[in-house]
């Protein structure tokens, strides 16, 4: 367990370094990426551009620039090129917004995904299964931006049932917080509910044919106990993996579309805005932040696996 943790931490470190290099390189090879031209305004004076290059260190060799950036990153002094805001502060400001969205939506999608998956498997081939399958496929197929836009159009613009986006901190006004979160939660979870219920349904239907389930029945256990202790116990294991990775990705800023549509000012939206203005420091910051969560969650998934399935041992 200790060896596993140490090894995973070392891996995480290398993943983050590699990602930062890739981000830096991409930024320097894309066309129109020169931040000096961008900062100098619409019709720049070459002397001004040169001055900006000097000030920001864009004339240094790339490895030096990279080293400087990373030093600032680790000291928490990374600042946006375009407006000078501190990247770490911006990330911390967006974090509660993203957390509200992702944690709330995750609860909804896990509960409903698992519930629908169980129902669909229980009534496999019959009407409830068909309905859930349709809902699932629709949920999977609909693009998030379209669902979000549709909800906003009908429930906000047409009937004014919900606010047109924005975020109210939970600590400030819990009711307003909830009121603002309902549509984003719905939008984000619809996709995952479809995936989770489909996956769980097929896992359950595979598991009920296992020999050990027949053994459980031959032991004279109640159907309820067979379902919960013998079937679901195993059918849910892959769901745990999927959830860990999805949650990590969304928490790490992957819910870009949902955050942007509902103007939640979270980490994802921050990333999207930074990419829009080709602002390297915040892009680097959000990439590292997101990667950290994904790597962290996948390590947690591996640990959870070892607990859920005794045949799996964590090897150092």
């Amino acid at each position: 367990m200790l060896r596993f943790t140490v090894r995973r931490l070392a891996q995480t470190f290398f993943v983050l370094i590699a990602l930062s290099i890739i981000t830096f390189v991409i930024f320097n090879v894309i066309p129109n990426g020169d931040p000096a031209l961008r900062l100098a305004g619409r019709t720049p004076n070459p002397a001004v551009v040169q001055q900006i290059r000097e000030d920001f260190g864009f004339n240094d060799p790339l490895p030096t620039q990279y080293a400087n950036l990373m030093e600032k990153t680790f000291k928490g002094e990374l600042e946006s090129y375009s407006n000078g805001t501190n990247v770490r502060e911006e990330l911390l400001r967006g974090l509660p917004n993203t957390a509200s969205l992702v944690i709330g939506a995750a609860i909804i999608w896990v509960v409903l995904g698992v519930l629908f998956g169980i129902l669909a498997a229980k009534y496999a081939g019959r009407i409830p299964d068909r309905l859930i399958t349709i809902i699932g496929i629709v949920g999977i197929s609909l693009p998030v931006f379209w669902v979000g836009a549709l909800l906003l159009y009908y429930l906000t613009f047409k009937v004014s049932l919900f606010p047109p986006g924005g975020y109210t901190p939970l600590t400030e006004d819990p009711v307003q917080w909830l009121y603002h979160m309902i549509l984003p939660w719905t939008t984000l979870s619809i996709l995952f509910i479809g995936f989770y219920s489909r996956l769980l349904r097929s896992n359950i239907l595979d598991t009920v044919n296992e020999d050990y389930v027949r053994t459980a029945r031959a032991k004279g256990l109640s159907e309820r106990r067979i379902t919960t202790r013998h079937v679901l116990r195993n059918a849910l294991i892959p769901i745990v993996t999927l959830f860990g990775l999805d949650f990590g990705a969304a928490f790490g800023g992957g819910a870009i579309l949902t955050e942007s549509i509902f103007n939640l000012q979270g980490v994802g939206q921050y990333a999207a805005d930074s990419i829009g203005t080709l602002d390297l420091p915040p892009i680097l910051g959000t990439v590292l932040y997101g990667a950290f969560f994904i790597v962290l969650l996948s390590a947690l998934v591996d640990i959870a696996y070892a607990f859920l399935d005794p045949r799996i041992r964590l090897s150092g």
Partner: protein
Amino acid sequence: MAEALLTVEDLRVGFETDDGRVQAVDGVSFELREGEVLAIVGESGSGKSVTAQTIMGLTRSPNAAFEGRIGFEGEDLLNASQEQLRRVRGNEIAMIFQDPMTSLHPVYKLGWQIAEQIQAHEQVSKADARERATELLRRVGIPSPESRIDNYPHEFSGGMRQRAMIAMALANSPRILIADEPTTALDVTIQAQIISLIGDLRSELGSVILITHDLGVVAEIADRVLVMYGGMVVEQGTLEELFYNPQHPYTWGLLGSLARVDGVKPRRLPSIAGAPPSLIAPPKGCRFRTRCPHEFDRCAELPPLAARAGGTQIDRCWLSPQEKAAKRAVEGRIGLEATA
């Protein structure tokens, strides 16, 4: 004669499939007496496992159709409610399966699984159940059961797992043990150990239904033998009757394909030519006639299961015992390549 503990009367089990209805069991009747070991023998697809699992209600599914009666302690198990069945399963009739690798739940400790069996039918504390589980493991010959009880199935060898399955089956002192090919998935040396374990435990096991295609296993522990072919019983009798005076040509074939260490050694081990019949469209008349070298015109009509050879033996072949004896003497074994 001991009285019947379990009676199966004219059991028919059919499954609807995309290709049509598979009549897996087609009119099987037999009884299991107190304290005996009844072997049901046949090839894959002969309906022996379906018969055994139907007794436990394990073949119930929306695609399955059942007819007949399975009488046990005044109840008809074939039409019993789920709750009635649940009380019988594991408690009165226990079952062990072919593949001990997959029949135990992979994520629970063995002690837990055995304790679960005990607590499914008896009100006992966790600690007592655990103690009894340890004792059961000891009885089936698992060394240092106090520590092994906290092992997971994957930490056991195949033979040990089958021992654990037997321990679990014994947990509630059932009156009947159904062993569905208990040795098929095991190494030959382990097979012998498991069979001798079942033999040793006979006094505790009550009656045993042993499903197998291995006549060596049958000779070892069975009292009576039921030979199934194509979903039907083709011959039934005591172990001696069947081994020394087999009546049905299919039984001859089975016995002929047995490797023997005594007597004439064939150059090549004989086998029964052809494949088991389709159970969707079985041959008219005798099911075995498509593979039987002694087929004659009367075989187009299905022979009834009747006593022809005397004793308790019944069989499904039109030939008279004298004709059979003559044909066996001339031809030795059916489907037999020339013996060296």
